[in-house]
C-alpha cells in the first residue's frame, strides 16, 4: 500500500533537500500549522474547510482502538450539524495548539482525550460553523436566524449553498471572539451516533498502520539489542551476514547492531548470523524473584513516604489484620510489533509510525540525532494497539538513528521477540494491606506500597532528554516529585478512595532497582484496584457481611460508585448465580470514570472458568454509546489476560518470555459472555479506554474466593 500522496510529497521534499515547511516556534508567535493550506478556511488548528467544501478535522489524538477517531469527528460534526461520516479525518502532526491543558504536551493517554477535548473540539467546530453561518447570511442577504447548516451546506426555506460557495466570504470575516455551544438536549450525534468511522478500512485491510508504510528504495532494518537491559555491543562480526541475499549494510547504532536489507525476511535471516560480543549490563544479576524478595524486605525496613492520611491514628482500634499482595511485571504485547519508518537528510528527519506522544518523541529524536525539534517531523498512523506502550519513543529514536547513520530511508521492524523483551513493563509491586477491627467494625484501613517508580524509569532509561528546556511546568513538577520519593502512579487507586473508615493511610516506598517500566493500560490502578478491592472483600468476609452490602455501607453517601455498584448487582442477579457458579464483585474509579464488575466463575481441577462478566459504567454522557461498551468489553478481556495469565519474569537482567506461547493472551474459547450497562448522566464525558481494566482482577479473585475459600493475593491467579 503506497503512502498517501500528501505524505509522499512531503517526504519527496525531504529527499530533494530541505523540509518543505518549517515551523516557527520562537517567541510566543503562533506557529504556522503543519497542515496549513493558503486557500482553506482555517480559523484554528483543528478544523479547516477546503475550497471544494471538504471539512477536514486534524486528529490530534492517536487512534489505537479506543475510538478517538470517531469520537473527535462526532464532537466536531455536532457543532457543524453534519453527519460525522462526512468529515475527513487526518492524523495531525505536532503543533503547540494540540498540547493538552492537563499534560502540557501533545500526548494520548490517561483516558483523557474525550474528557479534555469535549469543549476544545466543539469550540473549534463552532467557530467554523459561526463563520460559515455568517458567510451564508451575507451570501443570501438574510439574517443568520433564517438559515441553518446541514450536512455541508447552508440551507434556508428558499434555497441552499454548499460550503464551497461560502469559503471566500467566510475567509474574509473576522473569527468570532466567542461562540455558543449547542445545548446537550439539541445533540443529534453526541450520545446517539454508534458507528465507527474507522471500521470500514479495518475490515477491508486498507487501514494504514506504521508497519504498512512503503517508501521508495527504503531498506528494512532489524536491530540486535543486548538481551540484558542496558548492555551495549563490544564487538561484532557481520561478515557472514553481509554475504546474504539482499543485505546492504550492518552497522553499530548506539550500542546495538542494525542489519539493513531489501526485505524483512532477508534482514532477519542475516541477523541470526551476526556474531556479537556484549558488554556488561548494568542490570546483570537482576532477577524478578530477588526483586520481589527485596520489596518484602523494604516493607519491613522502610517507613516510606506518607501519601495520604485521613482521620486520627488513635481511631485505629481493635484487632489488627494484615495481608500482603504481589503483582508481576506485564508486557503490553500490542498486536502490531514496534516499528518506524525514517528518512534522514542533512536538513532533518521525517518519521512515519504509530505513536502516542509525538511531542516527547520530537525531543528524544532531537536529543539523539543532534537535529532541532523544528527539523523533525512525525507522521502518525493508525496504531495496532497502544495500551501505553507507544507513549515511549524508543523505536522512533532507533529508526531515526539508523536512518541518520546509514544515510538510507529505513523501516525498522521489531520481531515479536524484540517486542516482548524490549518493552517498558507494568511495574511489579508489593502492597501490605492492613486493617483494625473492633466489635465487628473496621476502624482503619492502611496500605503500604513498595514499587519502582515509572517516572523514575523515564529518568533512568529513556535517553538523557528528560529535562530539556522546552518541557513545560507540568512535567517538571512530576520530576520534582521524584526527588521527594513519590510517584503518583504507584499509589493511584489506593488513595482518593470513596471508602470511609475512621482512620485511613497510604504510604509509598520506592524500589530503586527495576528493568524499564512504563505506562500500561490503567497504570497504577491496574494493580492497586486489585489490592484494594480484594482486601475490601477480605474485610467483608472477616466481618461476615455480604460483599456488596459491605461496600455500600462504607462508601461515602455521595460517592458515584454507589449507583454503579447497585446497577451491576441488579443486572448480575447478585447473590443468585446459576448452580455451580460463584460470584465476585469489585467497583473502582479511575480516570474520573466509575466501573463495577461482577464475575461468575466455576472451579474444577484447579482450573478457573469465567462464565460471565456483568459490567456497569458511569462516564458522564457517552459521545458514542457503543464505543463505551466496546471499551468496557476490551478492558475486561485485557484484565482477564492479566489476571489469569500475565507474568513477565526476569533472570540475570533479561526477560524470559519471548512470544505468545510463553506470554499467553486470552483467546476466543476463553472469552466469557459480557454484558455492559451504562449509568447515563448529563455530566460532561470522562474517559473509557482504561477504566474497564482495574476492577476485573479483584472481582475475579473475589469470585474464586467465593468458589474455593482460597484467597489469592498474587497475580496471575493460581490455585493451590
Amino acid at each position, binding site marked *: 500500500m503506497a503512502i498517501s500522496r500528501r505524505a509522499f510529497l512531503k517526504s519527496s521534499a525531504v529527499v530533494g533537500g530541505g523540509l518543505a515547511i518549517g515551523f516557527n516556534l520562537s517567541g510566543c508567535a503562533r506557529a504556522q500549522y503543519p497542515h496549513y493550506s493558503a486557500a482553506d478556511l482555517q480559523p484554528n488548528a483543528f478544523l479547516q474547510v477546503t475550497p471544494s467544501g471538504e471539512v477536514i478535522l486534524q486528529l490530534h489524538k492517536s487512534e489505537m482502538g479506543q475510538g478517538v477517531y470517531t469520537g473527535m469527528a462526532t464532537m466536531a460534526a455536532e457543532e457543524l450539524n453534519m453527519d460525522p461520516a462526512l468529515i475527513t479525518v487526518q492524523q495531525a502532526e505536532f503543533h503547540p495548539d494540540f498540547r493538552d491543558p492537563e499534560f502540557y504536551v501533545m500526548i494520548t493517554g490517561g483516558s483523557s482525550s474525550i474528557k479534555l477535548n469535549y469543549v476544545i473540539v466543539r469550540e473549534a467546530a463552532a467557530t467554523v460553523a459561526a463563520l460559515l453561518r455568517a458567510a451564508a447570511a451575507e451570501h443570501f442577504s438574510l439574517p443568520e436566524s433564517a438559515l441553518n447548516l446541514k450536512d455541508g451546506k447552508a440551507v434556508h426555506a428558499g434555497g441552499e449553498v454548499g460550503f464551497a460557495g461560502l469559503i471566500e466570504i467566510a475567509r474574509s470575516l473576522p473569527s468570532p471572539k466567542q461562540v455558543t455551544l449547542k445545548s446537550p438536549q439539541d445533540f443529534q450525534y453526541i450520545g446517539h451516533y*454508534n458507528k465507527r468511522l474507522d471500521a470500514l478500512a479495518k475490515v477491508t485491510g486498507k487501514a494504514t498502520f506504521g508497519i504498512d508504510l512503503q517508501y521508495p528504495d527504503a531498506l528494512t532494518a532489524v536491530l540486535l539489542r543486548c538481551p540484558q537491559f542496558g548492555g551495549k555491543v563490544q564487538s561484532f562480526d557481520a561478515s557472514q551476514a553481509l554475504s546474504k541475499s539482499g543485505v546492504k549494510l550492518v552497522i553499530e547504532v548506539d550500542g546495538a547492531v542494525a542489519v539493513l536489507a531489501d526485505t524483512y525476511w532477508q534482514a532477519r535471516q542475516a541477523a541470526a548470523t551476526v556474531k556479537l560480543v556484549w558488554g556488561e549490563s548494568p542490570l546483570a544479576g537482576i532477577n524478578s524473584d530477588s526483586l520481589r524478595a527485596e520489596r518484602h524486605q523494604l516493607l519491613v525496613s522502610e517507613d516510606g513516604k506518607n501519601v495520604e492520611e485521613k482521620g486520627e491514628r488513635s481511631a485505629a482500634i481493635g484487632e489488627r489484620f494484615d495481608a500482603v499482595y504481589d503483582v508481576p511485571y506485564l508486557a503490553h504485547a*500490542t498486536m502490531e510489533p514496534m516499528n518506524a519508518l525514517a528518512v534522514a537528510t542533512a536538513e532533518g528527519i521525517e518519521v512515519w509510525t504509530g505513536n502516542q506522544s509525538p511531542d516527547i518523541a520530537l525531543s528524544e529524536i532531537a536529543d539523539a540525532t543532534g537535529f532541532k525539534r523544528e527539523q523533525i517531523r512525525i507522521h502518525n498512523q493508525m496504531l*495496532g*494497539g497502544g495500551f501505553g506502550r507507544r507513549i515511549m519513543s524508543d523505536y522512533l529514536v532507533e529508526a531515526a538513528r539508523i536512518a541518520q547513520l546509514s544515510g538510507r530511508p529505513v523501516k525498522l521492524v521489531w520481531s515479536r521477540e524484540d517486542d516482548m523483551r524490549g518493552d517498558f513493563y507494568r511495574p511489579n509491586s508489593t502492597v501490605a494491606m492492613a486493617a483494625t477491627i473492633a466489635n465487628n467494625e473496621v476502624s482503619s484501613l492502611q496500605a503500604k506500597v513498595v514499587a519502582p517508580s515509572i517516572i523514575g524509569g523515564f529518568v533512568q532509561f529513556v535517553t538523557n532528554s528528560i529535562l530539556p528546556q522546552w518541557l513545560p511546568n507540568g512535567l517538571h513538577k512530576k520530576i520534582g516529585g521524584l526527588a521527594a520519593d513519590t510517584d503518583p502512579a504507584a499509589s493511584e487507586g489506593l488513595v482518593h478512595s470513596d471508602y470511609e473508615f475512621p482512620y485511613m493511610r497510604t504510604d509509598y516506598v520506592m524500589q530503586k532497582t527495576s528493568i524499564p517500566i512504563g505506562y500500561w493500560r490503567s497504570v497504577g490502578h491496574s494493580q492497586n484496584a486489585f489490592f484494594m478491592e480484594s482486601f475490601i472483600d477480605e474485610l467483608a468476609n472477616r466481618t461476615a457481611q455480604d460483599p456488596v452490602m459491605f461496600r455500600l455501607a462504607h462508601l461515602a453517601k455521595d460517592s458515584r460508585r454507589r449507583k454503579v455498584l447497585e446497577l451491576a448487582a441488579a443486572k448480575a442477579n447478585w447473590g443468585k448465580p446459576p448452580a455451580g457458579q460463584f460470584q465476585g464483585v469489585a467497583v473502582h474509579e479511575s480516570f474520573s470514570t466509575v466501573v463495577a464488575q461482577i464475575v461468575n466463575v466455576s472451579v474444577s481441577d484447579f482450573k478457573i472458568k469465567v462464565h460471565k462478566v456483568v459490567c456497569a459504567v458511569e462516564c458522564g454522557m457517552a459521545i458514542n454509546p*457503543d464505543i463505551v461498551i466496546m471499551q468496557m468489553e*476490551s478492558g475486561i478481556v485485557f484484565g482477564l489476560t492479566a489476571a489469569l495469565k500475565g507474568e513477565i519474569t526476569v533472570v540475570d537482567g533479561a526477560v524470559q518470555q519471548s512470544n505468545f506461547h510463553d506470554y499467553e493472551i486470552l483467546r476466543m474459547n476463553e472469552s466469557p459472555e459480557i454484558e455492559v450497562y451504562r449509568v*447515563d448522566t448529563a455530566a460532561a464525558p470522562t474517559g473509557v479506554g482504561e477504566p474497564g481494566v482495574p476492577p476485573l482482577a479483584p472481582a475475579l479473585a473475589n469470585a474464586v474466593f467465593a468458589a474455593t475459600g482460597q484467597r489469592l493475593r498474587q497475580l496471575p491467579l493460581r490455585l493451590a
Partner: protein
Amino acid sequence: MADLAFTLNGQQQTLSIDEGTPLLWVLRDHLAMTGTKFGCGMGLCGACTVHLDGSPIRSCSYPAQYVSGRSITTIEGLAESDDALHPVQQAWLEMNVPQCGYCQSGQIMSAVALLANNSAPTDADIDSAMAGNICRCGTYPRIRKAIHRAAELKGAVSSAATVGVQHYDPAAVVLNTTHISDGEIV
C-alpha cells in the same frame, strides 16, 4: 533465488524470491499487499491468516515456494470489487467489531474459512475455529456475534459471494444494535 508463480486474489503472480521466504513477507514486502499482518512469526496469533486453495493458513510460517501453482486469497481479495463487501466484512461492520483493527484481517479470513465449511456454526464451533486468532483489544464477544450474523447474511445471499455496497457510504450501514445494552438511567 527461486522463481515463484501462483495465483493471488485471482491474478497470476510471478516473481523471484529467496528460498524459504514465508508467504507473509512475499505478500507484504515483495507485492506490497499489506492487509495481511505480521504479529508473531510463529503461527501463534493468526494475524497473518490467508487462504490457500480456500483453507486458512498462517502465512508467517508457510514457505512461499509451497504455494507455487496454487491459489492464495487475502483480505484484499475477499470482496468482488473495491466497492463491495464480503458478508463477513458486512457483519463485522454491523456488529462494530474492530477496535485497533490490526488483527481483524486474520480474524475475518479465519471466519470466512469457518463459514465456507459450516454454514451455521455453533458457539463451540466458533471457539474451535477462532482460537488461533488473538485479539489484544478483546473483540471476541463481537466476533462471535458477527460470525452468527454473517451466517444469516450468507444464507440470504447464498448465490452471490458478496454483498454489493456500491460507493460505500457509512451512513448506509445499519448497525445491529441488539448487542447494545444501552442507556440504563438509574
